[in-house]
């Protein structure tokens, strides 16, 4: 009981940034977009509960009042103009209340950040990811490029999640505007990270762009969302680090690449 009260009063200390067994709700939001998606879901759910309770009440009361044994002779009611008008107009107002926040969120998600700090290119392969940090070049004019493979099922270390971990994570700075460019090298893929509210399709012959602003440091897990054969569902792991640590992390990646 005390735990339930504490859970109600305070947010849990460990944010949910990966899929959990028997999970019912969304993962905790790490970006303003995901927070907006969760808020929209809650707004729509209010109407869902209202309609469900109302319709259930009407159904139960009708079954109660017009039970065959209590009411063996049914009334011959053909139509009722007033109630037909009300039951047409009132439900048509509800979608309007749903559409307003929905379209507001949709168009705000499409807003392109004019001057992102960092651009990262995510290239989907069968079946791994490669990432390019074209903003930085090494001394020999090579941009930072690395592959990211899912750690096999029989090879994880203690504490690692099965089929969710990768060997090289995408390191991004927290509280910084990023631009992700998503494209495939072969067949269609989809770069999806639920905590960030991002799902960007990788379509052959095309580069799709999405903007992300990660609000807190952490490790965020996602999975490819376009099924493409055996060994599919390879994972995406985004590690958001403090801005002051980002430079050293990128330098280390350069060193690993050079070696």
């Amino acid at each position, binding site marked *: 009981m005390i735990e339930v009260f504490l859970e109600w009063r305070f947010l849990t200390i460990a944010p949910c940034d990966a899929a959990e067994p028997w999970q019912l709700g969304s993962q905790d939001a790490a970006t303003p977009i995901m927070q907006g998606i969760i808020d929209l879901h809650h707004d729509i759910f209010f109407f869902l509960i209202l309609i469900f*309770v109302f319709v259930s009440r009407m159904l139960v009361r009708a079954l109660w009042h017009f039970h065959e044994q209590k009411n063996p002779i049914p009334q011959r009611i053909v139509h009722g103009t007033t109630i037909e008008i009300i039951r047409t107009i009132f439900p048509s107002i509800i979608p309007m209340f749903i559409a307003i926040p929905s379209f507001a969120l949709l168009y705000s998600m499409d807003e392109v950040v004019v001057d992102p700090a960092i651009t990262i290119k995510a290239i989907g392969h069968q079946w791994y990811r490669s990432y390019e940090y074209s903003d930085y070049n090494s001394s020999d004019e090579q941009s930072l490029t690395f592959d990211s493979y899912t750690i096999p099922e029989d090879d994880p270390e203690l504490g690692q999640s099965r089929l969710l971990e990768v060997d090289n994570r995408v390191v991004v700075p927290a509280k910084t505007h990023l631009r992700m460019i998503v494209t495939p090298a072969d067949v269609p893929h989809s770069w999806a990270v639920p905590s960030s509210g991002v799902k960007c399709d990788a379509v052959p012959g095309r580069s799709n762009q999405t903007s992300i602003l990660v609000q807190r440091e*952490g490790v965020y897990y996602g999975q490819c969302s376009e099924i493409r054969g055996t060994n599919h569902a390879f994972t995406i792991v985004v590690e958001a680090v403090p801005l002051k640590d980002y430079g050293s992390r990128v330098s280390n990646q350069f060193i690993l690449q050079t070696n």
Partner: protein
Amino acid sequence: MSSDLNGLLSANHMEGNKWLPHKIAHATLKGPNVVKEICIGITLGILAGSMWKMHHWNEQRKTRAFYDMLEKGQISVVAAEE
């Protein structure tokens, strides 16, 4: 005629009295008030929806408090270096 009526009544008695007047309900005479039922239904729906809204506002408050504490440095999501 009275014998016919007695016969009818006794026949009804054997069939379970389903034709007696007080057993036949009419919405116009005795039955549910449609407007009242709709109003009660909408009220219950709004009450249930309000409970959900309160849960939603509570979640928003917790999230806002979390990010405020994070901004002020009262909490941290970065593990300390060992």
